[in-house]
């Protein structure tokens, strides 16, 4: 443990030194504004921050001065006029050129999205966009890693039946037992919990692994998967559909004919309305809670790092140098807090899903 602690400290210290050096060499010549390159005239903090937390058609790794090092991702489009198209996003050259009648719109309502253009450059339509973007690639990578980990644990659990667990099983099995004993059984009851245990375990591990991988800024990890509202929407929809389709008669009776005084149900069905909307708001809040927590964490980290560049622009490289220790320390602190938040958010999402499943299948007492 001491060795690992020393190694971790050395790595963090080297990263810190690297960041300080980078900020120090960031000269305020960017303020001239006469370059027509990829850089903006001066540091545009808003654009920088939003770029770092949103989706993109390429996986950006580093930028050395003027050269961007990024991995182009495949773009899959279906257009009603010209059919299916599959190509790499490097054809767009970071949004500067059109390819086969498609381009990335740089302004207007469709900014940042792929649109169909004619030869004059005017937008004539929008194709059906099924591209592998950074979020999709990140989700696929964590899915592959999850499958590898969990299948290995399953295999070793079968092999060491009756003996002490070994290897990765030691790490994952307590978590699985935790989900079963502290989340599934208290919320759903001993009789029905096995039916829902696979989906609860899947939700817990998917959210936890994607949250944690979003914090590691090294390729191939580091895509902001759970900070994307489409991803959390799908997770909440899974909970919603399972709750709705496994609701027994008692569940529907509680929604449309609850045990309340008669004047709340007739002539104006107040309580049924409230319960019916509650059916939709509960998964909606699940979606927004996970999305907002993860997005806020990434946003704060990016804002603290961009503080260095803002100060560098305002006060010259000395300002950037002075603010770097504060900035880096805050970023590291927020990252550690975000690890805790990742665990808590995975736990809360799974717990609330289990509660909704339990409410849907409760027996009439």
């Amino acid at each position, binding site marked *: 443990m001491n060795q690992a602690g020393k190694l971790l400290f050395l790595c963090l210290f080297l990263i810190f030194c690297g960041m300080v050096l980078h900020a120090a060499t960031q000269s305020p010549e960017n303020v001239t504004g006469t370059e027509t390159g990829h850089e903006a005239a001066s540091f545009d903090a808003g654009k920088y921050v939003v770029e770092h937390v949103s989706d993109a058609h390429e996986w950006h790794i580093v930028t050395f001065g003027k050269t961007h090092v990024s991995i182009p991702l495949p773009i899959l489009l279906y257009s009603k006029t010209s059919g299916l198209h599959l190509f790499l996003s490097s054809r767009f050259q970071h949004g500067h050129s059109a390819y086969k009648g498609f381009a990335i719109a740089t302004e207007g309502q469709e900014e940042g999205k792929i649109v169909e253009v004619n030869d004059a450059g005017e937008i004539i339509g929008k194709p059906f966009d099924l591209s592998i973007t950074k979020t999709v690639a990140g989700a696929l990578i964590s899915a592959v890693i999850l499958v590898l980990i969990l299948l290995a644990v399953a295999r070793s659990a079968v092999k060491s039946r009756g003996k002490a667990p070994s290897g990765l099983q030691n790490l994952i099995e307590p978590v699985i037992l935790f989900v079963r004993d502290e989340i599934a059984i208290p919320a759903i009851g001993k009789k029905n919990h096995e039916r829902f245990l696979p989906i609860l375990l899947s939700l817990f591990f998917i959210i936890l692994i994607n949250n944690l991988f979003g914090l590691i800024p090294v390729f191939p990890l580091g895509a902001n998967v759970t900070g994307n509202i489409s991803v959390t929407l799908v997770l909440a929809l899974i909970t919603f559909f399972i709750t709705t389709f496994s609701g027994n008669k008692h569940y529907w009776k509680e929604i449309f004919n609850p045990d309340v005084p008669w004047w709340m149900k007739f002539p104006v069905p107040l309580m049924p309305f409230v319960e019916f909307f509650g059916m939709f708001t509960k998964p909606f*809040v699940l979606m*927004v*809670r996970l*999305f*907002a*927590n993860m997005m*806020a964490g990434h946003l704060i980290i990016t804002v603290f790092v961009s503080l260095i560049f803002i100060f560098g622009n305002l006060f010259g490289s000395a300002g950037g140098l002075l603010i770097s220790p504060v900035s880096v320390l805050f970023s590291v602190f927020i990252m550690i807090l975000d690890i805790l938040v990742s665990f808590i958010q995975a736990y*809360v999402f799974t*717990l609330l899903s289990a509660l909704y499943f339990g409410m849907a299948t409760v027996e009439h007492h």
Partner: protein
Amino acid sequence: MTTLFVLLAEVALASFGAAIGAGMATIGAAMGIGRIGQSAMEAIARQPESSGDIRSTMIISAALIEGVAFFAVITCILVIFLGEN
């Protein structure tokens, strides 16, 4: 005086409202979670052996309240990006 107010309305009323709203949401969340922490600490002081149960309940309640606060923040962000034409 009225022209001054009309000018103010033209300028950035949506952003102004959104920023104030986000601040108020923070106040509400901080007060709520502060109360949870207070009662959790008092309960643990009364009965130290139930500190594990109390700790997990406190974390769950704090996460749920934070969810509502983030809901308000998301609404404010939407107002900034979609308000003012």
